[in-house]
């Protein structure tokens, strides 16, 4: 039934809607007809993608020239979620967010693999938790970023381990970088308020000079998150309790053009204090969690002879405390990262463009959950000759990377990507095969008791292929289709050693396969622009072999992985008004490995209304959102309810040009 449901929905949206739209008098945009463009509604989603250089794969080309599927989100997408974390934005992508609800964790899962197997990169450096391996994206406010790339197919040869399920690439908001419209803002700010005591505000200030820019983004939010939910056990309505929290972030970014290159630096400081509600079955009124951290990265990029050289430096200090008095839990953690790399690119106009680099660093974790301070040294070297041939229509990207870790040794990660522009400016065939790895986390290795210092890295073979089509026909702008397979072995699986101690071993084998499709259309009727996009994802992720005697999981879909999901968006822009509707249908998720219980499918509709005005030098924008319009009662993680229908209001003001400029 879910399959039939999805096929029908996809068929309706992909086949009948364009016809209906045409019947209503809308016309498809023709190339070069720039006069019909709405001046206030420019977005990355509608054919401007060639302006965007993708970073998540290290192949600095636009989306259509990549060997793997990449979903970029730009400033305008992010600005719709100014007062929130990036989680709500990313739920509009193929990535599945394992969301514990407002005030709780939100973990990204790509292609059905675990959150610890998705690498989250900030300006090219990993920010996944050293102890857990995963990255809680509820800690990442959308207001801090200029763009986010969702790249499930990125191999380990690009940025190293933890990328069995690809990566998420975050680029900081800065004065130098412009949005898709080419617009730079000198001053902007937003204030948001919403249901359940949500308050958020941000200020972004840029000082843009001829050769240098300096910008700062300040973000703060607080919320009670006391939303109502149905207590099905007792047939009554309850309110989420002990779920309040507040967070503050400061991001300072600077760029300076030098005589022989450019210097760029970003500093990010944050603090978050939260109550922890736990499941709706438990009550931990005195439980608190605090996350405090600082990250800094800096790089210089310039030419040395025939080479462009980019040395980079990254520092991170993260402090975490979790106190649960009722269970006498007092967990403390302090982690440090010092990473450095040097990348080099041979400046040539030939068929082969050589790039490569070396990196190294130290990672250290000090926590009362380990017997003493633990650290690891890591080094890596990689090389990638990008080959462009056949009249610039065939791109081959072979790469090999070798990583050396002080705790488990060396890992070799080769990959081979291809992108063939079969029909110029219209159709690209693409594919990539890679051997990837995921290092054991510090908790896997050192948790006391149970940590296993003899763990090996998880390994996988990943392959994907598909096409990227720009038909420019019947309003259809882009069609993407991707099929993938992942064979994972040496997966780390925690199992009970006895009644109180669990320990991890490299015993898990996973087989993942899936199909990702996406169609984007664009229509015009007078001053009105209508954009539609639909996407359907199939993920089949199974345990490959028994992990212990009597294991009933092999051959069954993994827990908490929806086999099907469907997304649709409709956006209408007319004059200063914008109406955006997004729809998501998520298949059931198994709770138990033997498929004896599950969470039912759910569908979510969000409605957003935008009004943009200009007044003298200022731009203003009012945003009203109705989230979960259908008031769906649902959970993504068992016993963590999601809020029903609720309102959010955001006011944004901007001063695009620096006074005197």
């Amino acid at each position, binding site marked *: 039934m879910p399959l039939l449901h999805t096929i029908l929905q996809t068929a309706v949206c992909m086949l009948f809607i364009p016809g209906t739209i045409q019947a209503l008098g809308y016309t498809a945009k023709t190339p070069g007809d720039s006069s019909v463009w709405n001046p206030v509604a420019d977005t990355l989603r509608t054919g401007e993608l060639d302006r965007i250089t993708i970073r998540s794969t290290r192949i600095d080309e636009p989306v259509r020239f990549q060997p793997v599927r990449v979903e970029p989100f730009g400033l305008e997408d992010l600005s719709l979620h100014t007062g929130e974390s990036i989680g709500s934005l990313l739920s509009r992508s193929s990535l599945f967010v394992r969301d514990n609800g407002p005030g709780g964790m939100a973990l990204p899962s790509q292609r059905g693999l675990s959150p610890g197997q998705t690498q989250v990169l900030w300006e090219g450096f990993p920010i996944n938790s050293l102890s857990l391996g995963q990255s809680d994206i509820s800690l990442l406010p959308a207001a801090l970023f200029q763009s986010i790339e969702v790249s499930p197919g990125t191999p380990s040869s690009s940025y190293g381990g933890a990328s069995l399920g690809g990566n998420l690439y975050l680029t900081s908001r800065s004065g130098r970088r412009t949005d898709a419209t080419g617009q730079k803002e000198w001053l902007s700010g937003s204030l948001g308020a919403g249901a359940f005591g949500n308050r958020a505000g941000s200020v972004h200030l840029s000082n843009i000079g001829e050769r240098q820019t300096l910008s700062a983004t300040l973000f703060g939010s607080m919320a009670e998150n006391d939303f109502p939910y149905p207590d099905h*056990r007792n047939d009554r309505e309850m309110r989420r309790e002990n779920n309040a929290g507040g967070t503050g972030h400061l991001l300072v970014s600077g760029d300076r053009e030098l005589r022989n290159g450019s210097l760029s630096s970003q500093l990010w400081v944050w603090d978050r204090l939260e109550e922890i509600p736990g*499941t709706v*079955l*438990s*009550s931990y*009124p005195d439980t608190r969690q605090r996350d405090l951290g600082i990250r800094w990265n800096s790089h210089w990029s310039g030419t040395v002879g025939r080479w462009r050289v980019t040395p980079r430096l990254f520092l991170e200090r993260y402090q975490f405390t979790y106190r649960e*008095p*009722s*269970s*006498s839990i007092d967990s403390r953690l302090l982690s440090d990262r010092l990473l450095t790399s040097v990348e080099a690119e041979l400046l040539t106009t030939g068929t082969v463009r050589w790039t490569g680099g070396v990196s190294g660093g130290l990672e250290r974790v000090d926590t009362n959950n*380990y*017997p*003493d301070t633990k650290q690891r040294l890591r080094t890596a070297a990689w090389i990638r000759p990008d080959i462009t041939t056949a009249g610039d229509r065939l791109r081959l990207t072979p790469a090999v990377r070798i990583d050396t870790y002080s705790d488990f040794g060396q890992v070799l990660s080769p990959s081979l990507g291809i992108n063939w522009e079969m029909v110029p400016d219209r159709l690209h065939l693409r594919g990539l095969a890679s051997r990837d790895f995921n290092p054991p986390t510090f908790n896997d*290795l*050192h*948790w*006391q*008791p*149970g*940590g*296993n*210092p003899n763990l090996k890295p998880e390994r996988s073979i990943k392959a994907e292929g598909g096409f990227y089509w720009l038909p420019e026909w019947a309003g259809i702008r882009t069609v993407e289709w991707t099929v993938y397979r992942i064979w994972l072995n040496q997966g780390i699986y925690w*199992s*009970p050693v*006895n*009644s*109180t*101690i669990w320990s991890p071993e490299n015993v898990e084998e996973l087989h993942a396969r899936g199909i990702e499709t996406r169609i984007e259309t664009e229509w015009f009727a007078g001053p009105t622009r209508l954009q539609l996009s639909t996407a359907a994802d199939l993920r089949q992720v199974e345990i490959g072999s028994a*992990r*212990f*005697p*009597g*294991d*009933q*999981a092999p051959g069954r879909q993994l*827990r908490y992985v929806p086999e099907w999901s469907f997304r649709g968006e409709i956006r209408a822009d007319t004059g200063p008004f914008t109406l955006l509707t997004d729809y998501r249908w998520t298949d059931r998720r198994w*709770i*138990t*490995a*033997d498929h*004896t*219980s599950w969470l039912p499918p759910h569908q979510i509709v969000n409605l957003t209304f935008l009004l943009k005005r200009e007044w003298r030098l200022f731009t203003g924008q009012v945003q009203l959102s109705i989230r979960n319009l259908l008031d769906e009662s649902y959970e993504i993680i*068992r*016993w963590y309810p999601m809020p029903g229908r609720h309102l959010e209001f955001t006011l944004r003001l901007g001063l695009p040009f620096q006074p005197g400029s």
Partner: protein
Amino acid sequence: MNEQPTITRFSIRQPIFTCFLALLLLAGCSDDLLNDPTGSGDGQVLVLNEGNFSDGNGSLTVYDPDSKESLLRAYQQANSSEFTGIIQSGTLAGGDLFIVKNNPNEIEILDPVTLKSNNVISVGEQEITPVHVVRLNNEKGYLSSLYDGRVYILNLQEGSVEEEWIEVGNNPQQMLIAGNRLFVANSGFGNDNRVSVIDTQTDELLTHITVGTGPSRLELDSNNRIWVLSRGLQAYDGTERDPENDQPGQVDLIDPSGLSHLATIETGGFPTAFALDPLNGTAWVVNDDQVQQINMETLSLDEERTIDESYHGIGFYQERGEFYLAENTSYEQNGRVIVYSLEGAPVDTFATGIAPKDFLFLER
């Protein structure tokens, strides 16, 4: 003197044995019990399935040893609603079945025959982490609380927890009433070695009796001796196991009248569950990857008669002369129970909910 059964070493990993169990498992899957969760025979076996903590999916499985039919989720059948929580323990007393749960922290009182839920005592707001309930009389019971080292007094008439409590040792778990005294096993997760004794008339702590490391389970035998199972302590030096500093588990016997320590039986290993078989004078101990037998008269281990398998729980059905071993495959999928005759032959197996842990035997 009871006749001792003849048991030889056997392993569930032997192919023929596994096939036999598989056939039994298939044969035992019937919907008949769905119409009558109490079964049709002279008695029934209630399996307490702990469940996975984060999913709160403990469950009760009913097994009819006569028809060999089982009902996987008997609570749901009886109450038309999901059972919610992690089962810590179950106590049959005074015609009630007390199921102690975490996540949510509450005591659910069921009719032991129909499994209909009659009352729920919620203790979450008091920040009690309930482990075990014992009933003194119609009015009063006791509740051990894992993390605060206390035993709380239950008002069974009102279905509430009294404001008084009794300080005992570290991480109290199972309790037992013998005469006018309440005995509390303070496990300390391997960092306590005492059984606390409380006067049930004054609710005052009388004394502590020193036993093995990590006492967690108590059982009274027909000779009025309390058997105490201590789990021991698995030592770690950092993340590395440190076997030299292990403190192995053991079984101790206590005289509840004289409050004296009677004997110690060194089992070695780290035992997790036990059951007394008074018919044959045997104590069965689940210990690491084996099930040991202790002669209850000589208080000695019978080394020759060990079952080489790892189990999660054990129960002895005295009226039928069968013992039940719970097999927990993982906390993400259903477990199963294997029924053995006293001769050591598997006579049946049936599927259970997640992490089967304890057994209760109901006779009509």
